């Protein structure tokens, strides 16, 4: 110890296999004191697996780990935390009904005997908050907090456990631009104090912005390790996907046709029974992509749920191809020939524990094509699903493989295959590329453009402004359940969209 060049974490020759699939192949990874190191790679590159090994969540098949110079045999996250390693997963581990303070002390030994000593815990928490500028009311119940605030609670939880090696798994996937900037400020102040941060991501711009050093993984191996200053975004993309894949989107000029979606005066409530949509009006036409920008939590989720038939609105009118949509009835939405891509594909869109085939037939298993008198026509169903798997290039062991064995990109391909199979007149795509890698994202974008050329009208709800700008014919901005502004896709600046997103009308 003592040498400043000695890494705080040294993972050497790590290999991890899952049922014959090699997730990490002979990876060596070092992390130094006071640095922010990005772990960059496509989905399935092995980033999360590697860090789960460092966090003691998985054990590696081969290789060794040294933490602060000592060999570490980690058999559970508890072992890792005791050595100062903390990890914040994409899905937070918080109890929604408890307060911030309770969530932070749970599982620690802060107490006298069997009683919790919340008073001194609270004092320690407030000190931490002041040191790192993470302001949250300790008495607030977690369910009342925004996603960004919940993430702060997770960070505080790690700091409270005296973690000095913090791993964050795609922390910005759930954040808006302002929250992301906030998070970066916190991470920098952590690094300044001498703590080390591993930042798992596949967003090139963010990685360039936040990290000191970048380690690129591809196919379970390390393909590059560079200082952030030595690289530009295009080189980084090449390293990550092994080919030149910064998208160049080509869009044909197409005049918009008849309206396929008409929303008038739509009002709806959110889960907490507060107004989420206020007198919303919107039209989407054939051959048109309407991009809906906005910071998350401004009514996008509720709007898509109303259209999907999952949330009955308070009042308003929705017409699909000039026919009124029956509310609160998913089957009616399916009958209106709408392609529905929900933002939470694992909870709402897909049956993760059933097979790929069982997911592909979900919406038309009761059509005359697939059953007679309640008996499934298995031959036709097999044909249908094998055809879709081939046409959409879904990587799976077969139509009978369980859906949760698919990677994120393939899950989304599965969603698209099902939703586009019926050649929908209208497509509602909610965050269709969130959490996907560059390759999968490009594929989804191409498909959306193809659907536009086919004649479909598309409502693209996204927080990714690059996506909105590169795909949309028209851009609308939603703020607190209202359309703040609307412009042709080419005739508006990012600054203007940014102003509308924060509720400023000029």
């Amino acid at each position, binding site marked *: 110890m003592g040498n400043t060049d000695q890494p705080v974490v040294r993972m050497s020759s790590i290999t991890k296999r899952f049922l014959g699939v090699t997730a990490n192949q002979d990876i060596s990874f070092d992390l130094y004191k006071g640095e922010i190191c990005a772990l960059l790679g496509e989905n399935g590159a092995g980033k999360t697996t590697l860090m789960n090994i460092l966090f003691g969540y998985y054990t590696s098949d081969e290789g060794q780990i040294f933490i602060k110079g000592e060999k570490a045999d980690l058999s559970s996250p508890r072992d890792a935390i005791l050595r100062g390693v903390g990890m914040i997963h994409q899905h937070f581990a918080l109890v929604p009904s408890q307060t911030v303070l309770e969530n932070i002390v749970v599982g620690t030994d802060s107490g006298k005997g069997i009683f919790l000593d919340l008073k001194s815990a609270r004092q320690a928490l407030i000190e931490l908050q002041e040191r790192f500028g993470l302001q949250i009311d300790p008495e607030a119940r977690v369910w009342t907090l925004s996603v960004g605030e919940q993430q702060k609670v997770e960070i505080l939880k790690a700091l409270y456990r005296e973690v000095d090696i913090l791993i964050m798994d795609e922390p910005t996937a759930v954040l808006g631009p302002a929250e992301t900037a906030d998070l970066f400020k916190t991470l920098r102040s952590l690094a300044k104090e001498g703590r080390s941060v591993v930042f798992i991501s596949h967003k090139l711009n963010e990685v360039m912005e936040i990290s000191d050093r970048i380690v690129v993984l591809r196919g379970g191996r390390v393909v590059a390790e560079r200082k952030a200053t030595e690289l530009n975004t295009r080189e980084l993309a090449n390293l990550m996907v092994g080919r030149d894949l910064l998208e160049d989107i080509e869009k044909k000029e197409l005049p918009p046709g008849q309206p396929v979606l008409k929303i008038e005066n739509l009002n709806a409530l959110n889960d907490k029974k507060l107004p989420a949509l206020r007198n919303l009006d919107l039209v989407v036409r054939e051959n048109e992509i309407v991009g809906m920008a906005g910071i998350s939590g401004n009514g996008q989720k509720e709007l898509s749920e109303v259209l*999907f038939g999952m949330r009955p609105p308070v009042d308003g009118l929705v017409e699909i191809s000039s026919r009124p949509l029956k509310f609160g009835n998913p089957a009616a939405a399916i009958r209106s020939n709408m392609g*529905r891509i929900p933002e939470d594909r694992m909870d709402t869109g897909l049956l993760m524990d*059933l097979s790929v085939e*069982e997911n592909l037939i*979900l*919406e038309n298993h009761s059509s005359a094509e697939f059953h007679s008198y309640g*008996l499934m026509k298995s031959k036709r169903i097999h044909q249908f699903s094998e055809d879709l798997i081939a046409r959409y290039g879904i990587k799976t062991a077969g139509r009978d493989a369980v859906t949760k064995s698919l990677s994120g990109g393939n899950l989304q391909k599965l969603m698209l295959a099902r939703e586009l199979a019926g050649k929908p007149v209208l497509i509602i795509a909610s965050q269709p590329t969130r959490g996907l890698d560059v390759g999968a994202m490009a594929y989804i974008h191409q498909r959306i453009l193809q659907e536009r050329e086919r004649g479909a009208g598309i409502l693209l709800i996204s927080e990714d402004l690059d996506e909105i700008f590169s795909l949309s014919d028209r851009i609308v901005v939603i703020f607190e359940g209202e359309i703040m502004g609307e412009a042709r896709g080419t005739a508006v600046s990012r600054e203007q969209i940014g102003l509308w997103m924060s509720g400023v009308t000029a």
Partner: protein
Amino acid sequence: MIRFRIIKREPLPGWAKIVIPIAAIVVTLILSAIPILLAGGHLWKSYFYLFHGALGTRYNLLETFVKSSPLLLTGLAVAFAFRAKFWNIGAEGQLLAGALTATALGIHLGSIPTVLVLPTIIISGFLAGGIWASIPALLKTKLKVDDVVSTLLLNYVMIHIMGTLLFGPLQQPGSSWPRSSAIIEAAQYPILMVKSRFHMGIIISLVAVFVIWFINKKTTFGYQSRAVGVNVRAAHFGGINTTSVILWTALISGGLAGLAGVGELCALQYRLIMDISPGYGYSGIVIAMLGNLHPVGVLFSSLFFSVIIVGAQTMSRMTGVPTYIAEVIQGMALMVMLIFLLFTEYKIRAVRK
């Protein structure tokens, strides 16, 4: 120092589904040696009489089938409901509803053509169990009442309804016991093998195994209930009428339990008594779990249970080990199976400190 840690394991291959229940039964029998020895039994003799008593003679073998019939039906009832995540703990009450209906009809159906008596009783018994189960299903879908609690509590409601009727309108005239009059002969299940109690209900329960397998595997409804079972929200999103799927699931599940009640009444007791069921509905839960909620698995686990129950009688007579050992073995089987199922997802690792 060595510590032990429970960690997640990778998914097991398909053959494990068959090997694990068999291994669980073997381990159960090995562990059962402890209480048998404690009760002063001679180990090999005890096991010999346990199996000989259940399988060794023609009569005993057929008697094992007789015992398995209600267990199979309640096991199927629970398994079918659990697959759709309708937590039906109420097979006992649904069984009683079936038996009660069979009694009322079996006493009074003398006026209709003989060939119609049994079909009427069977269908009505099925419906009675099904309707009794659809009450908690309605409460669950309309008012979000927890189905574990409501199905369980309705068992006690049904026991008291039965008691009220057996001390009232259904009581055998002139009797001071809570028992009904005997059902008419046309309402009795035919015996299919001479010098035994092997009755038509056993065939009905075997047919039920096939029907449930067929529904699960081949029908749109089976698909829908599977979808509702793994993720109600996604099933709803996909246009499935989840309320109706849960209601139909409850109806079929309760109906199967109702058939168990009809069988006990029309094939064995011929009259309703308070202890018509020694807890078949509750055993059904254990049997369904032991059979991994699969109809064929339930068939084998119900046979295992009836072997233990029937064999324990002989074992007790010949070696003096009390028949309660059967219940110990059943409980042990469930515990072992649950532990084995746990180890399909987790493994223990020794860590040197």
